[in-house]
């Protein structure tokens, strides 16, 4: 099982000054699996995310992707290995059109090479591929809009599309549902399930618990930087540690389940 895992965190900790943002966290994620990473504000979810995507280097511990150690590698290297991510606060390339956003991501191999980046990107082939991806996320109609002009729901899709353009094996989704309306949430959930079915492993940070529980195959709960529970959503929902972490310390009789 361990060797099959797509992503594996081994005893990862991160300290900022005296603060233990993440403490001794281990978990793994398989192909074609959605793992929900949840926890109250300040629990260390985003720090975990940033360590996997390369924005932060763990203080101690190891992170493996397909058996290769990736902790401490620069972001663009990790991206080129097949890890795509989205951001909690969307970060599309505002001055580019939706299509160009995707086209940019399709260049991932060119950017790594010595000279291929001189080639033209604006060609039919790339355009076609980009359009296909936009179509997949339902943004084909907005292909020629500047990203800066798109509403949030579409930007969330655009970010997912941009990550998909990397042909990732692992997709990191950081609160992709926040700020969306219900119908948008439904549409996006469908899309994520489709992506999973295509064989991609997905790590999902989500605070909308209804969504997270609905989508995840397994969940990992962090509180104050520590892993306090893990397992299938049903089990998590009734875990007393989780309830306490979310609702605060209280007599359990108040929390009718």
């Amino acid at each position, binding site marked *: 099982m361990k060797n099959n895992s797509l992503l594996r965190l081994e005893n990862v900790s991160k300290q900022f000054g005296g603060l233990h943002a993440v403490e001794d966290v281990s978990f793994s994620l398989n192909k074609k699996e959605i793992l929900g990473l949840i926890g109250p504000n300040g629990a260390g979810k985003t720090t975990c995310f940033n360590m996997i995507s390369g924005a932060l280097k763990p203080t101690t511990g190891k992170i493996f992707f397909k058996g290769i150690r990736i902790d401490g590698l620069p972001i663009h290297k990790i991206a080129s290995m097949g890890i795509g991510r989205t951001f909690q606060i969307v970060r599309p390339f505002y*001055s580019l059109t939706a299509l160009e956003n995707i086209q940019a991501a399709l260049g991932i191999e060119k950017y790594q090479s010595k000279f291929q980046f001189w080639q033209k990107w604006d060609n039919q082939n790339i355009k076609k591929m980009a359009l296909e991806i936009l179509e997949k996320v339902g943004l084909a109609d907005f292909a020629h809009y500047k990203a800066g002009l798109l509403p949030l729901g579409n930007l969330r899709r655009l970010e997912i599309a941009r990550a998909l353009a990397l042909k990732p094996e692992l997709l990191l989704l950081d609160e992709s549902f926040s700020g969306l309306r219900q119908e948008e949430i439904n549409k996006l959930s469908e899309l994520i399930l489709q992506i999973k079915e295509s064989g991609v492993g997905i790590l999902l940070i989500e605070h909308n618990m209804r969504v997270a529980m609905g989508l995840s195959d397994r969940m990992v709960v962090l509180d104050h930087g520590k892993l306090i529970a893990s397992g299938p959503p049903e089990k998590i929902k009734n875990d007393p540690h989780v309830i306490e972490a979310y609702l605060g310390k209280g007599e359990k009789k108040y929390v009718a389940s």
Partner: protein
Amino acid sequence: MDSYIITIGIFIAINSIVVSGLNIIVGYAGQISLGHAAFFGIGAYTAAILATKAGLSFWLSLPVVIVITGTIGLLMGLPSLRVREDFLAITTIGINFIVEAFFMYVPFFGGALGIGGIPRIEFFGTPLHGFAFLVLCLVFLVIALFISWWFTKAWCGLACFTLRDDEVAASTIGVSPVKFKLLAFVIGTAMAGIGGALYAHYMRFISASDFGFPVSVMMLSMLVVGGMGTVWGPILGAAILGILPEVFRPLIDYRMLLYATLLLLVIRLQPGGILGDNGFVKSRLKAFSRGGKNEK
């Protein structure tokens, strides 16, 4: 054609080349530079020294000029990896002052006397002047424009655009900030170097003050007025700011005041530049207000 008009044309063409280079650094890759005149100067001095001391023709020295300015540009691009925005702006101002001081106080560069006696450019034995020189400048301008245009069409250009918009997001699609920022600096400064070489061979006498900080400001103003990040913006800006002072010439005393007032008005009313795409301005607005100082 009138030699005065030709001269103005030559300066506009040279400035367009140099500002196109600046556009690649600032407009495409989003790295503020207020020291571009230093590279213009490095190009001019390299060409002048190779011509007067080594007797090299313009054509032979051109590759050397490109390599030298590009290399120094690469070194000067390094601070952009460490510092941002205000710090980078001040650092590039500093680079300009230091380079100017170098030309001024190192005897090898002619010191305060500058370098004179730079020969004309010869084309198969015919010295170029007047109209022929303008044509030469325009040929280089076309090349610069082509590079500038190609940059918008090639993967490296796209990579720079993503860096300009959002460096972290760019990294997540595999763009190495180090590689592409430095690439923009190398190409941008090399273009300034070519402009400098043309300038030296046209003026035939150069001195350090031709490449001082005010020249950098003028170049950035041309870019901002014309439209940052657009292929044609540098030419429009160089033309407007090149022609306006000449048009105002009859005003003598009020000329520079009018010029300053106009520049201020353009910046105040059209901060995205005349060719600047509204969408671009708007998006920059978002990009910057998100990192605004009132948050966090």
